[in-house]
């Protein structure tokens, strides 16, 4: 019997593909060793047709893989010949400009065979713990400082991993065991995806993905274009000022909204930094498109059709289109503010739908023992607590306090941090008045105070933003509070990028930034202001920004 592909059947298959990629994603997260994967879901999984067009992608904790994976698979698909592929082969790369913006992200692609020919591909990406070099931090001065780069190659040949390649990866890492575990998890994820894809095709009695793929892509493209058609056509520009590393810098964006798509161009954006906060274009594109899709057609799943109308470009060599061999390890620091950049453009077209700027860049705080502690036989540790500032106020609601956006990261629990490392967090509380005033208030940042618990010094690797330039409000809303890092007894504030040594008796204080407000503060509902005062989110002093307490 030939399966008739009615719309309901096509849709059931589409739903199945979406379920398969979510299952792939879960498989990967469960088996991953990197805390950032576990806590933040920093992975991706997708299914592609034989031409490399993405049909489904898991919704995971990070937008950083959204189009990067689609582009990477197209690249690998073009690079290797279909005729040479065998069942059980898996291809890979961690080239930041092909995969996902820095060396830690490994991307694998596996052809799916049915009746002896390739019918599609599965792919997945995951963040590995350590690739050697200077490690996860902005201190490298070029990509070679940052660790091992593996160009597109065959990782698994007909089911057997390339032993030499695995040896090389092990030999170039401080965490060889965890890396190996992560790579096996990626392989298992690809294999599981292929297996489920083929069994789905068997179940539904289809020999290729052509009809299904066209249905998914056409439906999604149409939906995306309809959503774009609701945005007034025009050219919208925005500029963000950021702290940068060695100097402050500007990010520029021009958003062109036309009937057939939305295009973002970063012309005018500052050049690259000498340190690893540069962003390859694929990564900047991922966050940019994510932000647009939060407003324009958020209910349409990511695939080649829904992504096609969104394009992003920038002059080569600007910090959002960094070129080899500049360092890119901490590309998320600025990558995570590109949503604020592009939403500032979109706001001009849709003033009633776009939130104010938020803290955006997470306070990801890798810490480890000071080198001499290990030499003296002291307690060694390495942890990576993550904490966030406030999100921007929404056009019809306050921002969210101490909440990740655009990242989907989980904040760390203090009891867990203290169980795993000799540190004590003495305070973790919302910071009153840190949310930008507005008709709708920005989300609050938080204050975190910490010391060593055993008087041993430790190192914090900083790469955070908005210590100099706050998250701005919209429509008369005021900016959120700046972030701030300092020692309680210190004379001056600590900059947001670089290595920070904390002595055994130092008392370190982090303030994460607040989100910007939306609308004129004088228009805030008095009851809402009164509640903020009652709850201590706004102080009497802070209430002055709203014209004071009536």
């Amino acid at each position, binding site marked *: *019997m030939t399966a008739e592909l009615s719309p309901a059947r096509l849709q059931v298959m589409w*739903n199945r593909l979406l379920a398969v990629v979510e299952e792939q994603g879960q498989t990967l997260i469960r*088996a991953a060793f990197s805390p950032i994967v576990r*806590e933040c879901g920093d992975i991706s999984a997708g299914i592609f047709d034989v031409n490399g067009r993405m049909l489904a992608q898991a919704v995971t904790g990070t937008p950083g893989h959204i189009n990067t994976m689609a582009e990477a698979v197209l690249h690998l698909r073009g690079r290797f010949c279909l005729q040479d592929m065998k069942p059980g082969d898996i291809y890979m790369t961690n080239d930041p400009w092909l995969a996902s913006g820095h060396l830690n992200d490994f991307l694998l692609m596996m052809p799916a065979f049915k009746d002896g020919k390739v019918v599609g591909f599965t792919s997945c990406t995951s963040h590995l713990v350590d690739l050697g070099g200077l490690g996860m931090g902005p201190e490298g001065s070029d990509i070679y400082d940052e660790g091992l780069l593996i160009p597109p190659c065959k990782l698994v040949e007909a089911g057997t991993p390339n032993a030499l390649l695995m040896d090389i990866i092990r030999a170039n890492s401080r965490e060889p065991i965890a890396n190996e575990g992560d790579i*096996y998890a990626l392989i298992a994820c690809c294999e599981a995806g292929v297996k489920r894809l083929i069994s789905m095709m068997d179940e539904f009695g289809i020999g290729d993905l052509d009809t299904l793929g066209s249905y998914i892509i056409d*439906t999604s493209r149409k939906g995306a274009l309809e959503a774009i058609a609701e945005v007034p056509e025009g050219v919208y520009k925005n500029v963000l000022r950021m702290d940068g590393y060695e100097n402050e810098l500007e990010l520029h964006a021009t958003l062109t909204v036309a009937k057939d798509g939305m295009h973002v161009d970063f012309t005018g954006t500052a050049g690259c930094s000498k340190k690893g906060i540069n962003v390859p274009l694929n990564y900047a594109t991922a966050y940019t498109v994510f932000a647009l899709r939060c407003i324009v057609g958020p209910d349409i799943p990511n695939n080649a059709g829904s992504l096609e109308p969104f394009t992003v470009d920038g002059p080569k060599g600007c910090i959002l289109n960094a070129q080899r061999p500049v360092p890119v390890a901490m590309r998320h620091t600025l990558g995570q503010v590109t949503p604020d950049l592009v939403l500032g453009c979109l706001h001009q077209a849709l003033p009633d739908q776009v939130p104010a700027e938020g803290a955006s860049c997470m306070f990801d705080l890798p810490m480890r023992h000071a080198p001499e502690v290990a030499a003296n036989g002291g307690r060694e540790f390495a942890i990576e607590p993550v904490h966030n500032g406030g999100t921007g106020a929404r056009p019809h609601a306050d921002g969210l306090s101490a*909440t990740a956006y655009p990242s989907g990261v989980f904040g760390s629990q203090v*009891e867990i941090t203290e169980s795993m490392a000799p540190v004590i967090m003495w305070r973790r509380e919302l910071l009153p008045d840190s949310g930008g005033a507005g008709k709708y208030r920005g989300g609050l940042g938080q204050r975190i105070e910490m010391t060593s618990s055993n008087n041993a010094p430790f190192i914090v690797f900083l790469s955070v933003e908005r210590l100099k330039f706050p998250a701005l409000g919209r429509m008369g809303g005021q900016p959120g509070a700046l972030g701030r890092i300092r020692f309680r007894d210190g004379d001056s504030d600590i900059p947001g990028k670089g290595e920070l040594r904390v002595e055994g008796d130092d008392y370190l204080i982090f303030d994460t930034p607040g989100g910007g407000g939306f609308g004129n503060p004088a228009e805030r509902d008095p009851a809402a202001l009164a509640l903020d005062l009652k*709850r201590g989110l706004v102080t009497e002093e802070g209430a002055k920004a709203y014209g004071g307490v009536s």
Partner: protein
Amino acid sequence: MTIQTLRLAIDIGGTFTDTVLVSDEDTILASTKTLTTHGNPAEGAMEGARRVMQQSDRTLAEVTGFIHGTTLATNALIERRGAVVATICTEGFRDILEIGYERRYSQYDINLEKPDLLVPRERSLTISERMSAEGDVLIPLDETQIDALLADIDASGAEAIAICLMHAYANPTHEQRLRTILTERRPDLTVSISSDVSPEAREFDRLCTTVANAYIQPLMEHYLSRFVDQFEAAGVTCSILMMTAGGGMCTVETAARFPIRLVESGPAGGAILAARIAARSGLDKVLSFDVGGTTAKLCLIDKARPQTSRAFEIARAARFIKGSGMPVRIPVIEMIEIGAGGGSIAGVDRLGRLTVGPKSAGSEPGPVAFMRGGTDPTVTDSDITLGYIVPDTFAEGHIRLDPEASKAALTRTIGDRLNLDPIGSADGVSRIVDESMASAGRMHAVESGKDLGPRTMIAFGGNGPLHASRVARSAGVSCIVIPPNPGVGSAIGFLFAPISFEIVRSRYSLLESLGLDGVNDLFDTMIAEAKEVVGQGAGNAPTETQRTAFMRYSGQGHEIEITLPDRPLTAEDITPLTAAFEKEYRKQFSRPVPGMEIEILNWAVRVATPDPALLPVPETPECTAFNVTETRQITCDVDGSTKDAAFVARADLKPGNHVSGPALIHEPQTTTLVSADFSAHVDSIGNLVLIQHQKGGA
């Protein structure tokens, strides 16, 4: 002659109260469904009890065992009908609830609001004190702040207090001291402390659990004492035991202390029933499938034990999305619950995609066919249109159905937009909802490192038997068991639950450098605590103790549960435990990671009365084809064609009787659809067994 036992189980659900009376091990004497009486739920329960007593000609005084489960605790949390709670945390940590995990539960939804966690910031109080992760006092409890704290509590209007101090799981003395002072000085307050309610690391989860407990404690104390009083007045002499989310029973006193453990006890009963059937039928791998009016609940059952978990989320706001509810850390039978049931509403989204649920028409207004004012087509409307629900036998004729209204609604909402006739629309709704139930099951299995394919599905609930073969096909499952009285499955399950209590406590250590004395002391304390609780209900009955460690590779998030020997650990245990962990890890992830350190954060103890003995299962008598005399026209769910289905009353089927699909096997509270690619027979203990005999083209 053995002493005859007479046991009564009452499960109070959101719409119906199910009551079952059983004699001996599992002879069902009577069962009934009555409407839940929300004003005083005990009334509906009493009505149910009266009916089964009447039907079986017994009296309440003869009852030797009484098990009660209720959604009251869950509903109080969902409907926000609990007490005014204030929290007391360590100074510096006022915002544990506000900050939570710092995340949005939906990646693309910029307008989402975070779940309401019951205690607003103005009632979040603090006191100066501090423990270290090891349980050492870093800052003593500052009792000079008590007066100010009491003034704040008084001003806040709090009726119940939740205390959660940093690392109290490692050293509870500050929490205990604070509770003593508060109960002395404010005897009217109920006080819950985190080191009692949920002694696990992770301040947010522990505080949420403590808050939820405090929130429902006054209400549940009141309810339980009234319930007991009414039934004692009606003649009940045996003690009443409460069903818990973990699938065990506890005394009313324990329930009043830890009411949070009563949430989701109904679904737990269903899983217990499925486990019992699995044990009796020798089924090693089972998927229980419980579908009601609003949700479908699936549970994996291996070796006749339902999968358990230590965490659960209450009142998920948005479409059952993870993270949109309030996390509580209590021992629970782990289930995946999705918004797909008979009342789930179907529609078309703006991409032209068919959608079903999670919104439900519930029982009011209900499906369109019920003619109670519902206008949105539901899953039940599509089942009626496809011919699977036959109007004249539905709900014993208590509810009249209008199939034409179903068709009109399907056409209006779906057919006109997608250019489908009513049957095409109904078929689409069925495919989408069945696929989403199957997907939920597959996802749940993947998250647990398991596979669905080799499992037997045990289906019950009002809509479970109706959708079982369709969902099984999507999930790749080829064998289904439908127990007798599937409509009151949860209440029957209560009767097979052990009296048990489980405690999980955090203590971080690496396996290779385990502090043996500390761990053994920890277990001694936990076992003594659990035995005392179980002893209250079980008296001198024998109990079993199970010790467990939750292990993981350092750096990895996923914990693997390893059973420990029931004795103090010694240095010689480390190597076999490492091997046990690696073996289990290999099973789940195909290869272990030699050389990686293994760490343990949580330790658990479960003390329980032994499972009731199993009767030997007689062989199913030889299959004989049942003589089908009636048929009904249905739309075949395999290929969409029109077919005549055998129409059989379940009561007419005898063990060994065999019916080929397509067939509809109806009974008072539900109908079983036997799809064309399945056939059904009745086994020796009255289960309906459906076997797929050919792979259907989905």
